[in-house]
Each structure stands twice: as C-alpha cells, then as structure tokens.
C-alpha cells in the first residue's frame, strides 16, 4: 500500500461509513495541505477496492447532485487491519527514534 493509498484509506475511515469521493478529496487536501486532484482519489479508491481494503456501493440519488448517484465507500475489516498494522509498524519505529535509536 502506497502512501497516498494509505492516506485515502484513512480518510474514508475518518469520514465514517458511506462516504464518497468528494469529501475524501477535500479531507486529504486539508490534511496534507497540498492540491489533490479528483482523478488521483478515484485511482487510489479503485486500487484499494481491487486489493480488498475498501468496498463500494451505489448510493441513492440526492437532490443536491441534480438527481445523480454517488459511489459510497466503506473500509473493510481487512483494510482496517492493514491500516492498523502499518500504523503499529510506524509507531514502533518512532518509539525507537524517541529512545535515542538502537545502540
């Protein structure tokens, strides 16, 4: 899982279940402080889905979007475990750094 995919996965998780591409894009942009294109989000979501980390479903059309549907994403348990594992790896490394490194 690449860095950008990880960020996207975490964004989906942070935004709660049944989120879609637009809030994810806004979240990632805000969190990283750099411009993120919607295409990159689509690509990352598709790859995450192919790896089984997220799953998508077509949501109900809403009036706000002119009656057009949206694709809703949920993080799968596999995705969550993988993200947590990644996080733990990083945490261990940071802890090592904080203790002054390995002697």
């Amino acid at each position, binding site marked *: 899982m690449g860095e950008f995919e990880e960020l996207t996965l975490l964004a989906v998780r942070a935004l709660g279940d049944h989120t879609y591409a637009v809030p994810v894009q806004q979240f990632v942009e805000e969190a990283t402080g750099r*411009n993120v*294109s919607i*295409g990159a989000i689509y*690509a990352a979501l*598709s790859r995450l889905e*192919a790896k089984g980390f997220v799953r998508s479903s077509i949501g109900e059309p809403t009036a706000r979007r002119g009656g*057009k549907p949206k694709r809703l994403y949920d993080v799968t348990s596999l995705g969550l475990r993988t993200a947590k594992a990644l996080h733990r790896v990083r945490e261990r490394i940071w802890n090592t750094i904080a203790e002054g490194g390995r002697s």
Partner: protein
Amino acid sequence: MKATRPPGLARMLLRLQPLGRRRAEVEADLGELFASRVEARGVRHARRRYYLDVLSVARIARFGFGGMRSAPDARESRRAFHLWRRAAPEIIQDLTYATRLLRRSPGAVTIAVGGLGIAIGVSASVFTFLNAVAFRSTGVIEPSSVVQVMRAYPNGIGDAWTYGDYVQLRESARTIRLEASLRDGARVSQTADRDGARSTSLTFVTGGYLSALSNRLFLGRMLMPFDDSPGAAPVAVLSHAWWSRRLGADPAVVGRPLWVNGTPFTVVGIAERGFTGTMDTPPAMWLPGATFHVVSGGSPLDRASSTTVGVLGRVAAGVSMAQAEAELSSIARQLSPQRESSGPESSMTRSGDRAQAFDEELVGVRFQPLASLGGKGRAQVAIVLVTVTTAIGLVLLLACVNVANLLLASAISREREIGVRLAIGASRGRLVRQLLTESLSLGLAGAVVGLLVMVWLVPILATIVRAPDSLDLAPDPGVLLFLAVTAILSAIGAGLAPARHASRGDLASPLRGAAARADGTGGRPTRLRSALIGVQAGASVLLLIMAALLTRGTMRAARVEVGFDAARLLVVTPAFGRGGSEAQARSYWSAARDLVQAVPGVEGASLASYPPFAGANEVTIFRRAGSRYTIFHNQTDSTYFRTIGLRTIRGRTFTDEEVATGANVVVISETVARDFFPGENPIGQSLARVIADSRDSIIGVVSNGMTARLRELSSAAIYRPMGELRAAKLVIRALDAPEPLVRAVRGAIEPVDPRITVDVQSVTDRLQREIAEPRALALLARVLAGIALGLALVGIYGVTTFVVGQRTQEIGVRLALGATARDVLTLLLADSLRPIGVGLAAGVLAALLTGRVVAGLLFGVSPVDPIAFAGAVLVLLGTATVAVILPTRSAASVNPSSVLRQL
C-alpha cells in the same frame, strides 16, 4: 444570482472521456467540488481546479477507469522524459564535437560541403524543371472528362476547326459542353501606361472556357460568358507564371488596365498557380474571344468566321466518351463544307496541309486527352532533362559521397580515436550516432550551398532548354522538399560507410597502431575504392570533353563568317496578329518603308519574310540520294540582297515587277548551285531538279550567308519574290552603328498605324542571343568539369594515400629483399593508375556516344574533335598522375628497417 457553472470547454472535454458506467457519478462529483470551491475560494480558483480535475480524470480514464494500469503509465512517461533528459546533452555534445572537428580541417570540409552542395544544387535544379514540366498539377478539375475535339479525315486527324464550325457544333451538342480557344501573339505593356510593351503569347477563349477547366482562381474572377459578348468591356485573366515573372506578382494589377496591341484590357483575375489551360505552358493571359478582332485585326469571331480555333469539350456527367464522340461525329458530318484557300492561316509552306485538310471530307470527330495533361511534348522535354542532367547530377553525387567518405574515414584519421572511445566504454550505437551527427551537419551545410547553386543554375538551364517565359520555375514546396531529402540522403549515405566501419571495428588493433592493421582485411573496401576512382575518372573526362567541345564551339561561333555584314543591320517586326488582312499589310508597308528610308542614317530598307536570325520555321527537308538535305526558304523583295550584303555571283536578282506579280522565279545560294548543278550553269534551269514538281526557274545565284540560324551549318537557300506582306519584316542597313537608330526608326514607323506596335532589334543582338545558349551551356560544362576534376584530384589523392599506407609493410619487405625505390614506385604507380585508365576509357567512350546530343551546338566543331578529346584526356591524366605520385613517392622512400621492426 445566477448559478455559476463549470467552464464549458472543460465540461466538453469531460464528455469526451471514456467513463462508461461511472460517467454520471464523476460528473456529479466534479460539479459538487466546483460548487464548494466557488463558495470557499471564488470562481477563478474553482474553474482552474475544475480543469485540472478533468485532466486528472482523463489520465486515469484512458487505462480503464482507475485501474491498476495507471501506474505503469506514469512510469512510462517518466522513462521517456528521462531518456530525453539523458539524450539531449549527448546530442548537443555531438553537435559541438562535430563542429569542432569540422573546423579543424577547413580545407577538406570546404571541398566536401562544396561538392555535396553542387551535387544537391544540380539535382534540385533538374527536379525544378521536371516538377514544372511533368509533375505539377495543371489545375484542371476532373481532367478525365475533358477532351480536345479533333477533326477526323479519311487519312488523319487535325485539331483546327473554323470558328463557324465550332458555333454549329456547340449549338447542336447535348452530351458535351464545348469551348474554343485560339492562341496568338501580341505586344502587351507591363504597366498601366503604354510603355515597355513586349511580344507576348495570349489565348483568346470563349466565355465558359476557363470555368469548364477549373473552378479556382488565385485572385479576382474568371472570364464569364458575358465578357465574351460583342460590346462587352475588354477584360483579361492573367496566368500566374506571367504575372509573377513580368509583373512582380503585384496583386494591385487586378482592376487595372494593361495595353494589348494598344487596347486597354482590365485585369479581372489571376489564374491559379500551375494552371496552363489546354496547352503545355500557359499563355501570358486569357482574353475573351469577342475581343479577338480588336487586338489582332480582321473580322470578328462569329458564325461566319473562318478563323481557326482549337475546341475543348467537357463531357456531361453520366455520358460516356463514346456516346459524346458519336453525337459530335454525326453533327460534324452535316457541317457545310468549308473552302479555305486563302484563309488567314495560309502562309507559304505550312498552309498547304491545312487548306488541303479543310477540303477533305470530314468523317467525324475524335477525342484526345488534353496536351496539358501529360502530352507528348512534356514527355520529350522530360526525357532530355532526365538523360542529360541527372547523369551529371548522379555522377557528382557519387563523387561527393566519395569525398565525404574520405573525409570521415581517412582524412581525419579516426580509427584510433574511435578505438580509444570504444575501449573506455562508449557503446557502438553512441559512436554511430556521433558519426551520423557529423555527416548530417555536413549535409545541412551542403543543402544551403545547394540552394544557392540552384538559384544560380535554374536560369542558365532555362536558357539552355529554351524554357518559355511562362514556365513557372520558382521554387515551390515540392522542390524544397526534394532538396532537403537529397541533402539528408546524401549526408547519411556519406556517413554510413564510416559509421558501419566504426560499429564493427575491434578494440585492440586500432590501438596497436597503423602497421598492425595490414592484415589483409582491407581487401574488399580497397577494391570498392578503386572502382569509385575509376567512375570518378570516367565522369571527369566525360565532362572535360563536353566542356572542351562546347568551348571550342563558342569560340568558333564568335568568329563565324555569316557571309554578310551583320553589324550594321536592324530588323523591324510589327505585330499584325492573326487577324490582319493582306491589304492592310500592303498599305502599311508601302507607307512604312518610305518613312524609314527617310530617317537620317538609314542606307537602305528591304522586306523579307525571314530576316537574319529570325527563327527557323522555313526549314524544309528533302531527300536527295537517300540523305537529308536542308534548304532554307525565304521570300524577299528586289533590294534585300543588296541591303544585307549578299553578292550576286551569277545571273541577277528579282526586279520590282517580278516581286509585284509574284513571278515564278527563284534565286539560289552558291551551295545549292554547287550541290545540284555541279559544273553547270543553273541560270535559266528549272528548280524541279531541286524540288520535284516545282515550276520555278532559276534566275540568279547569290553568295552564301548564314541567315537562318547560326548552328545550322548548311547555307543552302532558295529565295522567292516576296508574296505575302503580312508575314514580312523590314531589314534596315544603317550607315553607321545601328543602335542609335532604333528610336528614330520606331518613331518613324509607329504613327503609320498606332494599333500596331513594332519591335526594333539589331541583328547583332539576335546573333548574340543565338550564341547565348551554347555559351551558357559551355560555361555550365566548364564549371561542372572543373568541379569534377577537383573532386577527382581529391578522391584519387585520398584513396591512393590510404591504399599505399596499407601497403607500407609490403613495401618495406620488398625493399629489404632488394627491390629499388624505383621498382617500388613503378609498381605502385601502375597499380593506382590502372583503375583510372579503365575509367578514362569508359569516359571517352561515353563522350563519343553523347557527342551527338550536343552536336547541334558546336558550330562546325566535330563532335569527335580530336583536339578536345586529347586535351581532356591529357588534363585528366596529368591531374591523376600528380594525385597518385605525391603519396606514392613518400611511401616508396620508407625506411625498410623501421618497417621490419614493427612486424
């Protein structure tokens, strides 16, 4: 407040993406993002981001939406970018290296670039002609349905119809649209005022003629049917070539008048470039047929007109050629028979066939493809050009390849350097790239030189092949493309051999030094080099012989005895045009002659149909004892012989009465008397012995004079009393130099009939023009021969150096075993000169064969002139010997012990 929408262009781009099932979702997402950004950061920001988003979607959409395959995409483009980042400095490096290298040997580079440039220039010049004559489109739309309508007789076909016949055909034809044209000459001014009129070819056409052939114009409008009605304002459409060449391509001429034989014609259009109408070459302009009698005199073109025209047809859509031909044939057979014994076209010899043709029974109509769509004339010109000039171009190209080869392979001795580079890790591809960069730089420089050569050469070639004024020879994209392709190909060709050599070389031997290379692997290239040397020697000797022949010819022409005093003669040619009547000409001349004779400084003035050097239409060929015999026919008045200075040898010349009545008497030249009446007195005899069926009797013999064309060596001539004055020109003998008289003569003669403009020229001018062509050709041949000789010298020198260098070891061994330096020198000379000898022999043989081609330009120098041949062979042998001896001598003086130590 109006809702802000995403930019339309971006939305359109989005619609073009292959989004499939996800289209609605993506569009909604993007719209939502846009709306929220407008709120947060303003419209400008939102729009910009929208564009970027659309592009980002486009990028992933191409690889299956959001699929895994978008990753290699990015990697690929990154790789291409890195490749370029790595290659760019290399290319710049190669270029810098190439220029530095080329600057190091300026002499060799000058020769290589010059040679390459000349070869490219010559080839491109030839192509310019081919392009203008054969390749360029004629601008005729749907040429397959356009035909020339011919008359068919029991034994032949002809292209001339009377205008009356044409009108009848046109009115009855249903399956084909017919238009008529007739070509004529007139004097046309080149400015809106009447000054500077020149003789120009023009075509009178019916109103629908131009639009039947083409639907496009360069500028302005076509001639229309209403222009071709009696009383319409006189208008003209100019050909692009004439407009460019004579009027400097000035678009402002449209709407302005030009004076044609004294009548103002408003220019309404310029034809498309390359449009020639029904002919091979375009006229200066197309004028409405209704103005024919105004310009050329005579009767107007109408139902009763017997003026002859060419008829063009465009077959209607859905009608077959055979149907149209059948319909026209049946109409033509019902045409009232014409009697055309004294029509406007009847001049002395040629009219015979035509008048006869009109008497013959018309059996129908035949269609022929248009001359301008690849007729016989074009093919012939193309053949001459191809055979003569491409030969030269190819030979030069070969020579240049050789020079470039030498330049790259040995002159700048590279092998060691290449070996070093290979040894320290350069890839072979990298080396080849560098060598090709070098030769392409040479090619680029060669192309620039070639362009200059072409600019210089094309007008000279135009003089040589007598290209008509209206032939469009300005370089067009096709010519430039040809030039570029030739340059690139010859550069690559020149660079290929050394590049291949480099890419195959082994690492060790170049580093070990020159002596180590002599292991016999050089056998095949050496033989190839010998063959190239032979070809070069042959081509040079061929060009040298041509140059020598032509130079001797022009030198002789400058001294040629024309048989009369040409220096003090002027010729006055009036532009009567085709429509002028005989009576009109008669009254014109009787007035004009007296007026001219009254001009101070004029000694005498006489009429003749062919004054000195005024063309050769009068040539007639007879067969006498199975061989060709050419006699010039001329018609003169009683004083002509005295005026131009031909002596009466026997008998007498014409009396005024004989001229007035057109008596059956002739005067012959000395040559005719000698050839047909050897040892007899021809006076009082019948001309029948010379021309069968002739009823004329010979009354006098005059001295020989070359009055027709300088290059025709025969001075056989028959003079008849001046019959038709419409074809007459006035010859004036001045008391002193004739040039100052030109103005006075023009001033005296023009008031006789202001509609008829006159051309006054000195015979010396005409003579100069007669010599101009061979002189230009001689210059060209000398230049080419000089270049070829220089190239041969360089090539032979270089190759000999290379070959002898490879044999250093062998020479050392020979010397050590007891051979003298003299023996070695003889051996090396013999080996090197052998291929040159073979090439020389081939070149001489080729010269013997091609001599006939230029025989007509040699003014009495034989095409197998021994002096020219011997001179050329000696010059080449001398040059070749020098080129061979220099490197050979230094090789023969090698120290055997130092060579043997290297073994």
